[in-house]
């Protein structure tokens, strides 16, 4: 997995590439945790994300809960495969996907 961080004052954009699964989810979690202070808008760019497993969902849910407190979060460029997962798990209802 590769994470490209792009911080523009209060807007944090993270490009997540590769797979978000058991092995890689902790990495993303750490990056998010370490970068969220003062962030009002979090954008997750899933353009090059291959798939998400439940471990990745846990991190996304955690980020969503955090951003509920301090601003907003949105996911962009979500592929069909990942979208399928969000649909199955009902995540489509709690996430802002553009």
């Amino acid at each position, binding site marked *: 997995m590769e994470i490209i961080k792009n911080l523009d004052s209060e807007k944090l954009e993270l490009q997540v590439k590769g*797979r978000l*699964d058991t*092995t890689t989810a902790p990495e993303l979690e750490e990056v998010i945790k370490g970068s969220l202070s003062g962030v009002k808008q979090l954008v997750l760019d899933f353009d090059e994300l291959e798939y998400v497993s439940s*471990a990745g969902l846990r991190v996304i849910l955690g980020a969503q809960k955090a951003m509920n407190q301090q601003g907003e979060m949105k996911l962009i460029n979500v592929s069909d495969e990942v979208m*399928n997962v969000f649909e199955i798990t009902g995540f489509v209802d*709690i996430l802002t996907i553009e």
Partner: protein
Amino acid sequence: MISGVMKIAVSGIMMVLLTAVLYRYEQNHQKLKNEKRMTWQIVIGIVYGFVAICGTEFGVQFEGAVMNIRDAAPLCAGLLFGAPAGIIAGLIGGIERWFAVFWGAGEYTRLACTLGTIIAGFFAAFIRNSVLENKRPGFVYAFALGMVTEVTHLLLVFLTNFDDTANAIRVVRVCTPVMIPGVAATVCLSALVLNLMNKDKFKFNPKNRKIVEDLQAGLLITVLITFVLTNGFVLLMQNHMAEKLASNTIARTLNDVKADSAESGYTGDELTNFLAEEVKNWHIGKEGYIAIFNGDGYIVTATEGAFSQEALEAHYDLTNLYAHKEYSVFKQQVSGPDDICYISYIKMGKYCVLGLYPESEADLSRNVSLYTTAFFEIIILAVLFIQIFFLIREKVVKSMRKVNDDLDRISSGDLDVRVNIDSNKEFVSLSEDINETVDTLKHYIQEASARIDAELQLAKDIQYSTLPRVYPNGRKMELYANMMAAKEVGGDFYDFYPVMGNKFAVLVADVSGKGIPAAMFMMKAKTLIKSLVETGASPETALTKANEELCENNDSGMFVTVWLGIIDLDTGLIQYANAGHNPPIIIRENKELDFSEQKPGFVLAGLEGIKYVGHEVTLEKGETIFMYTDGVTEATNSCNELYGEERLANALRKVAGMNTRYLCKYVKADVDRFVGAAPQFDDITMMAIRRKNELDGSLSVKPDKESIAEVMEYFDNFNEENKIPLSMSAKIMVIVDELYSNIVNYSGATFANIYCRLEQSKGRICMSFEDNGIAYNPLDKEDPDITLSSEEREIGGLGIFMVKEMAEDVKYSRINGNNILDVVLRNEG
């Protein structure tokens, strides 16, 4: 006297014969020594009590004393048969002697004889029990004990008759030379006869001598010398004193006569008459006499009741008498053989006054002191001997026995025994020395065993280091091999390597022998075969050539059994040759087992000039060939049953079609179950090759964090090889991630087998996740509520929920202690 001694001797011999008869009877009836012991002891006691009574009643009269060997009876009973018998015999004999006075036995020695006999019984009992540890004495000891008993008896005669020492000494003088040797010889002969009957070995061999015997022998010599010197000196001194006393006594009386006659003032016939009257009632001491001769040598007068005139006149030639000086004393026999008197004279005018003083009276005190001294010395000597015996036994023998016991335990292998004897300094030091020696020994043994262990470990390390550990798992075949070394015996090995032309060589072998030599031999054989195979030799050629090489310089006579095969990965054709090894088993796709019918060739390195024959067999896709060493089929359980080929076949049927890692582990587990706690005697080696179906993918892993990447890669390869579309592969990867991470994190499994295949015709993909972790069916878990808001959502259960949603079918089963989750995906691509 002579006839008396003869009678005593005859009675002694009779007692010896009686002892022999009773002993033979006892020997023939072992019960008498065990359960009926007490009855037998009483019988023996009564018999010998009766013998003692006979001794009393048929004693030999001699000079007013009665001689017998009564005391020998309780001694024989006590010493030769047992303490109770001795005491009973002593009591019977002693008490009867007390009452025997009423029917004619001597009153004078009544107390002494009674006590003497009873003491003899108790003495024998004490010696038998406390000193001899309830064994019979040897004849020398028997003699000494008889002597000591009889000395005590005679000493009692003195002690019970202080008032009448003269009579006592008369009795003792008569009895001593007969009764002491008589009793001692009787007991000694009885013991000797029993020794001979029992064929005891006489201990002339110094190795058989006890310490105490050496000490006693030395002591005996010293004491005997002291005894002779003391008594000789006492005798000399007492003799001199007795002579002086006699001389003074006689001189005093003679002077009285002289003074009286001078005082009387008579001369001539008047004086003669006066002296005759005067001397008639005069005595010297108690029994001494006075006689007066006139100048012509005729007797004038003498003490009344003395010798006849004729006897004296005949005896005393005055000329001879006058050869002695006046007042000087000399000894002379007067009439009977015992009537030896001290004699002295004085001249009185024409008269000669002669004083005679019997030696028996003059020497009484000398004799008494001589006898009592000698008797006491003998008794003290005996006490000393017994005391030395006890001391040696307590201080030395017991300690030595303990040392010996400890040493026995040490030499039987228990090196943790500490010798701990604190009875005296010498033994403390001995104990310390022994402990030190044992410690040193222990140290050396430990070092030696450590060396041996190290050597075995080295051999095992060599053995293991030669085994390839990376098991090939390619598209066409997968292989797994395993070798479990036994503690000592070993020599199994396997090998596999690719050879030219998409072929693969495999071999399983078992070297005879153990330790480093076997390990080195194994290395040699393995390298040799490999180099031959790699140059392109066929299995039979490789083995034939290897045999020639190995037979050279094979001084140790080791050999090795080898099954060598070369498998063509494309066609599944196996060319093989067998040098005395167990033939492998082929597991066909229909789960049938195929045992090789070919007879194996001779073992490798066993005989020069062997030509091995090549064979061929084909392994179809999905089939497995299982190779093993005899450690598998000859594994033995605690009932000494062999695992055998039938159990092996059953186990293989159960896991037919499984991947080779699982198959080998299953067989090993089955062998372990069968063997139980019994030790493993031989190396157990197995190797399996499975020719894969074209598209199947299966992976065996140890489920840890590191293995996740391996699993992912495996499925990536599967997706790539089967050109699985992205939408499908993403699902596959999500499912793998969910299920496998569960196995890694929660199952506690040590082994997982993941199996995935594309069923093109049915348009589906089948995945199987198998693990040996705790039983857990994830499908039982309740589905999470996916309608909640982000604040209320929990993440648990989402993974398995996703799997269920994505898959067409998910099935859980628990088989052979393994969790198996089968997932079927509709291939939408």
